[in-house]
């Protein structure tokens, strides 16, 4: 579920960086206020634990395939939401930098998709509600399975929105949703089961670990309403920026929705989503003067094509594409030659 830079547009990437950076700053002050100086080493070491645990695969019964633990909800249970969010973010930073699991610009999206939902939705609103004040093995299982499934569903949906809004992938919105959600339902159930077995093991072997985590009651005095409200605000903010960009960008959300409408697959819910986005777009129209640097030739090409018109002016197009390919070859050769030359120079000095 890690998104790559190659499928993102700058608007989506930068917006999500902003949202994530803000959340990191907020969580950092929360953790600092906590005044439990055990937390920082604990977060770091548990982050390393999740990183490691993700490399241990288990066999999914009756399928022959294998999976690994995601760990978002597990971290939230052990550390509380704020510290857990920071820890998930750290694991993703390491994976992006060292293993190219998700790009650097995509980090904002990935941290959002995999961090926000387990820490601030699944844990406080589902897991803790089901567990209640009297945790029992059955409640632990139900709570972790539902928690993981919901977090993954939201995360997967968010991946769809971010990808479609970026407009690099040609996958239409509905097709993408239909692909992503059921796959992640299956993954979520399996991962929920695994999380349950790990938590029940810890619960029987060292119950005080879970109790101390629960006793801290990190979200105890925050009402559900506040979380929901801040989430709505966050959704509208990001949705607004994204849809505004999508409106400036013919390749974006609208394009795919329009395309799907053409084939008659658009259902009522998406229709209303479209209206909501259109409304937000109107509200955010004061940003309309802003536009990204663009050049003439290439963009005209895309616009013509995406508007669904017939290809026109074949000879002109042929001209640009030939000079484009020749130019690319030239620059490519130059880049390699310069690299080779510099390399020899530095090697000679070294």
């Amino acid at each position, binding site marked *: 579920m890690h998104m*790559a*830079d*190659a499928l993102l547009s*700058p608007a989506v*990437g*930068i917006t999500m960086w902003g949202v994530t*950076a803000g959340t990191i700053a907020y969580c*950092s*002050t929360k953790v600092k206020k906590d005044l439990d*100086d*055990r937390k920082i*080493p*604990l977060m770091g*070491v*548990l*982050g*390393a*634990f999740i990183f490691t*645990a993700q*490399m*241990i*695969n*288990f*066999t999914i*019964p009756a399928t022959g395939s*294998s999976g690994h633990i995601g760990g978002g909800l597990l971290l939230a249970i052990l550390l509380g939401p704020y510290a857990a969010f*920071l820890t998930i973010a*750290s694991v993703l930073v390491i994976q992006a930098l060292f293993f*190219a699991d998700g790009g*650097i*610009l995509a980090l904002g999206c990935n941290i959002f998709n995999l961090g926000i939902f387990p820490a601030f939705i699944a844990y406080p609103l589902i897991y803790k509600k089901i567990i209640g004040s009297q945790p029992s093995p059955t409640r632990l299982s139900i709570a972790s399975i539902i928690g993981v499934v919901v977090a993954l569903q939201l995360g997967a949906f968010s991946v769809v929105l971010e990808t479609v809004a970026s407009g*690099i*992938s040609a*996958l239409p919105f509905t097709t993408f949703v239909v692909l992503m959600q059921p796959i992640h339902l299956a993954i979520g159930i399996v991962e929920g089961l*695994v999380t349950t*077995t*790990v938590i*029940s*093991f810890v619960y029987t072997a*060292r119950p005080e*670990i879970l109790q101390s985590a629960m006793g801290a009651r990190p979200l105890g005095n925050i009402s559900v309403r506040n979380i929901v409200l801040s989430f709505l605000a966050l959704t509208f903010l990001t949705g607004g920026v994204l849809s505004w960009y999508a409106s400036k960008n013919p390749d974006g959300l609208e394009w795919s929705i329009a395309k799907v409408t053409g084939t008659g697959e658009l259902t009522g819910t998406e229709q209303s989503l479209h209206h909501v986005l259109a409304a937000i777009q109107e509200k955010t129209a004061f940003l309309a003067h802003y536009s990204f*640097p663009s*050049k003439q030739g*290439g963009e005209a090409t895309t616009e013509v094509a995406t508007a669904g018109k017939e*290809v026109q002016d*074949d000879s002109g*197009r042929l001209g640009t*594409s*030939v000079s484009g390919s*020749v*130019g*690319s070859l*030239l620059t490519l050769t*130059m*880049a*390699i030659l310069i*690299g080779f030359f*510099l390399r020899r120079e*530095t090697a000679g000095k*070294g």
Partner: protein
Amino acid sequence: MRSIDGAVLDLKRLDLLATGDSIIHRLDARAKVVTTLFFIIVVVSYKRYALAELTPFLFFPVITLALSNLPISYILKKIAAILPLAIFVGLFNPLFDRETQVLLGPISISGGWISLVSIMGRSALTVGSAIILIATTGFISICHALNRLGIPRVFTVQLLFLYRYIFVLTEEAACTTRARELRSCGKKGLGFSSFGPLIGHLLIRTWARAERIHMAMVVRGFSGEFHSRQINRFGGKEYLYVIGWSLVFIILRTEDITAILGAAFTGFFS
């Protein structure tokens, strides 16, 4: 889903490369972080069918790679390793986007294929620049740079803890999984019933370790505040690096260099 041993070797290799010495290695980490980020943003700012326009951007990774004395084959291998993933995510484009975009003589190429190749090119450029960043800078310096760029201390400090203990925990996990494999009598994979306890055990040991680390911190006078050295190396070279490259990226983004070059070249011969 990689093997533990392989991942650790990879991590150590990149970590050791970062201890090298070159013009690029010696630059302040902040300059490299900012430039790389800007590079990635500019590269992904191109529209779906951009292909020829992307080629001049190869200059950035090629030149930094050449100046940094990194083993080229290793970096290429790391980039090649992610390309299958790029192909996978771009594979839907030829299926859904079949309108002809380019005619090269009798061959017509659909938009989907062009955008698939474009996605691969973007992947190679963005991933390549990220790998060069980490291999010339090292994770520790990147964390310090993030801190100086405004990321909260709480976050960067625990990021450093995470990085430090990856090396310890992966070793523990590798021992555990090896011990399990040796007793699994050739059965492949790890069933649900043993996975939970295995991971659970690792978790409990990790928790105990965190408690010991905290102990070791407290007995050396830790009281919640981290002190770290602040070395400011951001000087002329760094400004030159950031501003120089940024200008190059902006020019490349606004002017279609390849088209100009190509036109000049074909014009010269016709």
